[in-house]
């Protein structure tokens, strides 16, 4: 029971008018702290939905999700926000930097939200780690996609999250830039001992993780961990 993330009998249905669409049905898995895991599957298979639920971004469906010891469906939105702030980091396909803030400020925000003092040196340090020491005072619109994603990686690691969710972090980048980003994520991940949940449809990328969950039509059709355990 000391898993960082435990998903049990999770289903999610969207109701639109009279039609109801089951996007996820009966998903079960657990993630060990410090491990890395990839969620793969074709477009529309429910990867993003699953990620959103696990990270506590969405209203829960049926079933239960325990993130860092907290049962998400029992929490209010604001309580989930507190959990996110304390234990979760995010990297998105579309970067999602705050457009009115500079790179440095973007990285400072999660720390400031935690109520930490003297956060600037930490943010500067992180930005230097992702190689943006000289672009700290630029706004998002003044940065290239790869640079924006590096800022968002620095931001994601700022509060030293126990678990990092990444939704197709290289999806919007060219291959070369994508590879640097991947390297950054994996390196920081190792260095800081963070758990990593990575959504991707790039099987090569997925292979670099400890474990692969494969979705199709909202169902978990393959779990490399159980596969190996079956073999063993």
């Amino acid at each position: 029971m000391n898993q960082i993330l435990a998903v049990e009998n999770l289903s999610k249905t969207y109701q639109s008018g009279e039609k109801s669409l089951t996007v996820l049905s009966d998903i079960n898995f657990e993630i060990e702290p410090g491990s890395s895991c990839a969620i793969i599957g074709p477009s529309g298979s429910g990867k993003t939905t699953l990620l959103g639920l696990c990270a506590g971004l969405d209203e829960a469906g049926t079933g239960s999700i325990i993130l860092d010891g907290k049962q998400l469906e029992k929490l209010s939105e604001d309580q989930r926000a507190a959990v996110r702030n304390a234990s979760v980091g995010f990297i998105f396909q579309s970067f999602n930097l705050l457009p009115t803030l500079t790179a440095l400020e973007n990285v400072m925000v999660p720390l400031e939200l935690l109520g930490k003092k003297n956060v600037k040196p930490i943010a500067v340090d992180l930005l230097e780690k992702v190689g943006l020491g000289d672009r700290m005072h630029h706004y998002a619109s003044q940065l290239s996609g790869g640079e924006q994603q590096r800022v968002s990686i620095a931001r994601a690691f700022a509060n030293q999250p126990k678990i990092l969710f990444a939704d197709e972090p290289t999806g919007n980048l060219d291959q070369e830039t994508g590879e640097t980003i991947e390297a950054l994520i994996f390196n920081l991940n190792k260095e800081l001992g963070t758990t990593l949940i990575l959504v991707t449809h790039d099987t090569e990328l997925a292979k670099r993780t400890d474990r692969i969950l494969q979705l199709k039509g909202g169902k978990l059709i393959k779990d490399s961990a159980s596969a190996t355990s079956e073999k063993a």
Partner: protein
Amino acid sequence: MQNLNWLLKMAWRDSRRNRSRLILFMSSIVLGIAALVAINSFGDNLTQQINSEAKELLGADVELESRSPFPDSLYQFLQDENLQLSEERAFASMVYFPKNGGTRLINVRAVEANYPFYGAIETTPISSAKTYNKNQDALVDQSLMLQFNISPDDSVRIGTTIFSIAGEINKTPGQSAITTTVAPPVFIPFSKLEGTGLMQRGSRINYKLYIKFPDGIDDQKYFNEVLKPRLEKEEIRFDDVEERKEELGDAYSDLTGFLNLTAFIALLLGCIGVASSVQVYVKEKVKSVAILRCLGASSLQGMYIFLIQISIIGFIGSIIGAAIGSSIQYFLPQLFADFLPFEIELSFSLPSFFQGILIGLLASVLFALVPLLQIRKVSPLNVLRSLGWGKTSKASRFVYVLVVLFVFGFSYLQLDSLKEAAVFTVSLLGAALILMGVSRLIIWAVRRFFPNNAPFATRQGLANLYRPNNQTLILVVTIGLGTALITTLMLSQDLLLDKVKLSSSENQPNMVLFDIQSDQVEEVVEITERDSLPVISEVPIVTMKLHSLKGEFVDAIKEDTTAGVRNWVLRREYRVTYRDELIDSETILEGEWDGRVESATDSIFISLDQGLAEDMKVGLGDPLTFNVQGALIQCYVGSIREIDWQRVQTNFLVVFPEGVLEEAPKFHVLLTRYEKVEKSAQYQQKVVSKFPNISIIDLDLILKTVDEVLGKISFVIQFMAFFSIITGVIVLIGAVNISKFQRMQEAVLLRTIGASRKQIVRINFMEYFFLGSIASLTGIIIAILSAWGLAYFSFETVFVPNLWAVLITYIAITGLTVFIGLTNSRSVVNKPPLEILRKEV
């Protein structure tokens, strides 16, 4: 604390990239507050001045007024009390300037040398105010001197006496330029009054007594404990300093209250501007809020960041507005100069300044809260996919209620009437709902009946009305409400002015001669006919008082509070005529008109006006007794008439049949009509030089004077409307400006896929043209409805909208909308698409 610090920091950081837009919110607030503070400070100063100058305005500690001479017992009492007294007799009479034969009806004021006890009659030369009484000269109003080209060494005839003119009057205690335009005063020494011969001959005289208290007593206490009880016992009308303060205060608070409401309208427009721009602003912040939520900010923190921004902007805007307002008030005295009985000294009004800031802050926060509250409902899931808004919450319904309460509360503060405030608030609410309804309808209709064969630009422009992220609702409500408010102001101003305007149509009399003595009638008629002016009517008038009603004495009825008889019918002096037939402004409602009493023993049946009969509580056949200068005449109600008072006729509340009053003391009134001014002047001159006691009212001159006064009032109103219009324009710029951000992306995409500059301009033109037209037309219709409502319920007149004003408003508002819209889209059209795409990320 830590939290607040961070919120402030975030609000600051976020504002850096939005300065121009935040300034736009601010400007909406600034003008409204400026107008409000200007009017309020001015009102404040006015009240202070009235308070400090009340004695000078009255000229005495107490002023007594009566239609008949004061009883000797009163004089005795006042003398025993050791009070200083000053007498005045005031009445309307003709002046005649021998220099050039000019003549006009004026207000003669015969006063003693010690008038006024406080303040002064301001004259040129200054010394003449002090010397005219001793030298037995007259002081003549400056407008009168100007009109007849008279200079201070000329003379003036009043009644049968010729006075030298000692000087011209610039200002008298308590009178404003407006009151003296209507009835210009001429001062003569009290001792010379008898000699004018005007006292005996039927003139309506106002008896006044000015009282000054001895030094060193407690004025208020003395008045309340000694003087007031005595005056009340004698039933004498009085005006003391406190009362005068109140009267003046009330009069001007009515004025400033109305102006304040106009200023409030400017502020409301500003608020609507804030609400709609914040609405769009917040929409654009959905993604940012979602990211913040994702990083762990709470739902309230997300909202507070923007609430802080708006509050600070509202606060700064209010301060700037209050500062501007405090300086604008220095221009207001020129505007109001003619209405005030004193020269106003202005000073900075701290209470108004702070009140303005408070109201500005409150208004901007309140109106911004409506859209801001929705931020709380933004789901963090928006970072993963665009979901847009959450649902509207209970809290925002609560804010709507607060907004309505705020509007109601403020209008109540200004109008001092729950009913009027409620009507104002409900109308405003109704207008907003109508506009929302209309824009929904338009969105639906455009979609339903889409003209698929229309040209490309028209189709795109129309489609923009209903596409996702359309501005239809916000723009239609904002522009529409602005148009409605301003147009209502304009139309109701016309109403106000039309109401007072009398029509002097053809064939109606435009000159009235009154106070003609019986022995003068024949000769006056002769003069009139010799001048080939028509004698439209000549009627005798007998003055009388009511003695008893249905067998009960008037004095007894006065005591009896249960009688329900209105006081005015018991006290007044009745001016009664007698004739044998009805005139065409009269209709018999009840009973019969019998035009002649054959013998002295027959019962006398008189005819009463409908309203008078109601207030007297009498019906057909009830007996009344009149006291005709000593002689009691018993009569009965024979008929009840309806009178059309709008017609220029000699109308009477009480009409006697012929055969009763022929021998009573009486005077006559003659109605005639002139066409040319010179002719009227010659005629008046002839009559007045022969019969100085006759007064002549020139209705055309009065109409002209009224027009002049109305012109000044309407200028004040227009000045205020101007504020509203400027605010409206700023709101319009704001509203259209924010929609630019919505259309930018689309326009850039169109450009990118090859749309020409012309095509984009055309699309934009069509969209803003449709929006502007819908909004302004709906607004105008609402304005016409509310002006009609005002006309029907408040002014009780018929309302005919000024079509030109309506057309001009439509063209101006639509034109402005299109113009601002197109100006905005120029930045899209004239720059390379990439630059804009990057900037607007």
